[in-house]
């Protein structure tokens, strides 16, 4: 049963995520959607918000291939010889979100196209820190 009464906090966002739901907020006053669940609407500053579930479908708006990873990604096994893709995805509902982009050829970044159709993927969640992850559709 989907609990829609969680507080508008990052802890709630990641609780939803580990339960395989990409959630965000909708402002009841102006309808603005946001992935990051802040208690005040970015657009109209109303405090009357509700949780909404996003479809997880979107397109890749920009990306990078990381060769010098931070500690958290080194601990996940990444390195100069095992690079990975991070990107920004524009969801079909409108908002954008930063995510780990799996299933693309990091050794040939020129083959990865801006506009690539992607969907959220919960199948390879790291346990240390939940991560929004996408795969090509």
């Amino acid at each position, binding site marked *: 049963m989907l609990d829609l009464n969680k507080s508008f906090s990052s802890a709630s966002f990641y609780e939803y995520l580990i339960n395989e739901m990409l959630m965000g907020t909708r402002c009841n006053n102006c309808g603005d959607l946001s992935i*990051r669940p802040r208690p005040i609407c970015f657009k109209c500053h109303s405090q009357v918000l509700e949780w909404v579930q996003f479809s997880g479908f979107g397109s890749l708006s920009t990306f990078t291939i990381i*060769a010098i990873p*931070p500690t958290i990604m080194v601990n996940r096994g990444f390195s100069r010889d095992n690079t990975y893709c991070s990107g920004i995805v524009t969801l079909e509902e409108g908002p*954008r*979100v930063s*995510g780990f982009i799996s299933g693309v050829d990091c050794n040939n970044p020129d083959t990865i196209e*801006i506009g690539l159709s992607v969907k959220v993927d919960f199948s390879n969640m790291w346990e240390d820190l939940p991560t929004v992850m996408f795969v090509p559709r």
Partner: protein
Amino acid sequence: MVELRRNRRLAKGVSIAGVGIAQFGAFPAKTTRDIFSEAVQDLLNRSEYGLNISDIQCGYIGNFSADRFEGQAHLGSILSDWIGLTPTPFTRVENGCASSGSALREGVMAIASGLYDIVLVGGVEKMTSVPTMEATDNLASVADSLYEVPAGFTFPGIYASVAKAHMDRYETNLEHLMKVSIKNHHNGSLNPKAQFNMPLEELMQQRIDWAKERSAEIPHWNDANEFLNDLMANPWIAWPLRLFDCAPITDGAACALLVSSDLSRHFTDTPVNIIGIGQATGRPLHDAEDLTSFGATRSASKEAYDMAGINPNQIQLAEVHDCFTIAEIIAMEDLGLFTPGDASRAVDDGRTSLNGELPINTSGGLKAKGHPVGASGVAQAAEVFLQLSGKAELRQVQQKGLNLALSQSVGGAGGTSVVTIYERG
């Protein structure tokens, strides 16, 4: 509802009456306070009429993260004590990589408010005390640690994403980015305080000597272009950015003496007036209006231009925040100095070179001068002061009637931007 004033004005004229710059580089034996003191000593040694340090009434010091890099917080007090200024009030300002851009603005407001007449602003960062991976982690903390970092983004990675989006929209390419790097390294070779105070050719020779010493395969490049196109010498950091697209990790400090304009000639014959200053915040890249532009720079520059009463096309020299080569390109566009898409071509054509129509980053920029993050904003102001007062020596811009200049200091990937406009006094 009260009516708010939209056109912000400084209530009192503020001038820079002197600057000090510590040697930029990697100094294992120096701590934050040593490097900062070196900048203050340089200010005192350059002073024309014997500046007395006890004349300073207040200080604002930009520092990003001495707490993480060195385990030392509360720098206002520590640094005031170290240069013998207690009980003068000193405040540390933290705004990521724009920390001392913001410290400069705090100092300007302190004088414009009428509270003080003589204020020291500065910035310092000691970064080489930790391994590169820890420095990478520290720098990533300027991004959103809850929504950007978990996706695997590093700080270079976020700028790389801006570069990719810019390349996709405006046909900017790796060659354009390389030209920014070559230009800034050339300027840095003329700046004795720069971390890379040498031509790229000398760096290439160092690599060759290094290989010889280790009996490794000796690389060969015909010129700097070949060197920068060799992925062994210039490897990917975050595609499409390579090592020489990124500012280095640097220890360094800079300071500037701000004074009420009516007092400026007691300190120097060549004061530089601050005629406009603006600061703004911006959203993380994924929520930015445009992936190829920083709204904070557009807002801060509008405020600064309005305050100064000038247009972007009147600017004759600029120091911009080139923490990555792409950052210089988008700064040129967001500041209104070039139209979007034209900045890459301007660099390509040499229009922003030392003796081009609009010299940008004559100091070598963050790329070649070095980027001690909390010091960079005031270090830019110091370069502008030297150029406008005709004291930039080997790299002095020869343009006749050099009068108006600008600096832009950015925190994170457009999270903060501070734009300052200067006029020769």
